[in-house]
């Protein structure tokens, strides 16, 4: 899946720094000196303690924040242009669905704003409902669905315009463990079907390992990338969670989070970019 695309990388981040409230007494340095290149089709997780700036980094890629230093390119473009071109779809911890729209109409919202005609929108939303296994729920209202189902609708909405890039900020953070694992399985399947590049912010080590081609480990104060750990698990399925490599990778990420040297046993060449 990591077959490196020789064309433009999906995301290039160079020397990015972010300072909030610069010059004021409550000045906070959220990110310093971030370098990261993400190839098209790669699944990257950002993991780290609270306040390490992982969400901020993702939001910079999505042009919801502007970095105070450094340069970001998304599909070779300025992030603002990429945002206006609908190059990415975003999902948050809260589903953020609109109660006044049916489930289908929620999924169709970005398409409506892109002036797709009604027939085309309906075809697309029913495809997406199939993709997230909610085919029978299109006519319902969001509050009639469970939390996991709402999150699946939010993911379908993020995928609506077939963006090549998905930005996901702890989308499964509010779900229970069982639902969460099932959603991870579905996300893996969806990514395989769509070939999307994903930046995934999470607090969960197993989640990061299960989903990712590379896990980017960050530290707080100031937010920095301390390690990038490749995960060589091949095709994911339910057995993956029992696989020794899975546990080895979890250990590698955990130790990287603690700041300990990563043992060579994992077979993963951790790249120290800090």
């Amino acid at each position, binding site marked *: *899946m990591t077959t490196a695309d020789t064309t433009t990388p999906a995301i290039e981040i160079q020397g990015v720094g972010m300072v909030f409230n610069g010059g004021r007494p409550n000045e906070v340095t959220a990110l310093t000196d971030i370098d990261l290149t993400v190839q098209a089709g790669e699944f990257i997780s950002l993991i780290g303690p609270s306040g390490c700036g992982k969400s901020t980094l993702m939001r910079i890629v*999505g042009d*919801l924040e502007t970095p105070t230093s450094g340069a970001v390119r998304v599909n070779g473009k300025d992030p603002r242009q990429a*945002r*206006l071109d*609908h190059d*990415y*779809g*975003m999902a*948050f911890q*809260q589903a*953020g669905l*609109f*109660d*006044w*729209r049916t489930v289908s109409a929620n999924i169709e*919202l*970005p398409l409506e*704003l*892109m002036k797709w005609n009604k027939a085309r929108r309906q075809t697309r939303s029913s495809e997406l409902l199939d993709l997230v*296994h909610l085919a029978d*729920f299109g*006519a*319902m*209202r969001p*509050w*009639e*669905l*469970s939390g*996991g*189902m709402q999150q699946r609708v939010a993911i379908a909405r993020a995928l609506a315009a077939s963006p090549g890039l998905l930005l996901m900020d702890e989308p499964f953070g509010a779900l229970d463990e069982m*639902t969460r694992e*099932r959603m991870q*399985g*579905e996300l*893996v*399947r969806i*990514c*395989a079907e769509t070939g999307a590049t994903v930046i995934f912010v999470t607090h969960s080590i197993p989640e990061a390992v299960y989903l990712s081609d590379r896990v980017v480990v960050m530290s707080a104060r100031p937010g920095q990338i301390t390690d990038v750990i490749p995960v060589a698990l091949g*095709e*994911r*399925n*339910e057995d993956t969670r029992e696989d020794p490599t899975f546990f080895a990778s979890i250990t590698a990420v955990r130790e990287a989070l603690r700041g300990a040297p990563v043992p060579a046993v994992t077979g993963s060449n951790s790249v120290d970019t800090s």
Partner: protein
Amino acid sequence: MSTVEAPQTQAPKPKTPSTDSGRWRSLLPPLIVGVVAVVAWEVLVRVFNIQKFLIPRPSSIIAALSTSWADILEGTKRTGYVAVSGLIVGVIIAVALALLCTRFRFMADALTPMAAALAATPIVALAPIYFKWFGATDPTAKQLVVVSVVIFPVFINTARGLLEVQNVQIELMHTYGVGDWGILREVRLPNALPFFFTSLKVASSLAVIAAIVAEYFGGQQGTLGSIITQSAGLSRYDRAWAAVLMAALLGIVLYAIVVVLERTFMPWQRAEARR
């Protein structure tokens, strides 16, 4: 990557829409209670021989209503005109102010305390002053009372609905490259609708009350307010009560219209309210 088996989450199946018989069943209990209360009232007043200047019997109120029907109907029309026109103008002003607050945040900081101060002022007490401004026979003074009373609840609630939007939803609209106008149309306005209608229910009742109390202070004759004060002054209590009954009906009709509007403009809220 292989497809991971994803068992379907069980969700509540779409509920069957409630039938007309269901609606009648929900109307039945209050209807029964109402009828029982009126019968009890009639019986108790007769049994204990309560003086009619204290509480007249329902039957004599109905009789007074039919003998003075022309006057009371005309009064209801006049009072209704003042209440409804004042309500409409007040709502338009309140919504405009709320939209202004959404566009310019500093307006919210400036207007909210002012609106609260306005609400704390006993507006109806200003009626005699308004009568001096506009002349006693001009309905403008009374309309102004209604407008002043209506503005506060509608403004405060609508502004809240426009401003208290999930941050995620705003950011989502940013990711779609949508500007302030699009956010207003797609997020803020629909989000404000339930708040608006809640306040409109309150305001519709307040409008009738404000109109009648304003009429107590004088102004044009032949309104419900003046019929009530005059009849009470002449000890025609059954006629006063008949006018009160019509005032109550006026308020109920306005409220019902608001409920119908609410259901028309917010179909998504209907099922939720029934849960």
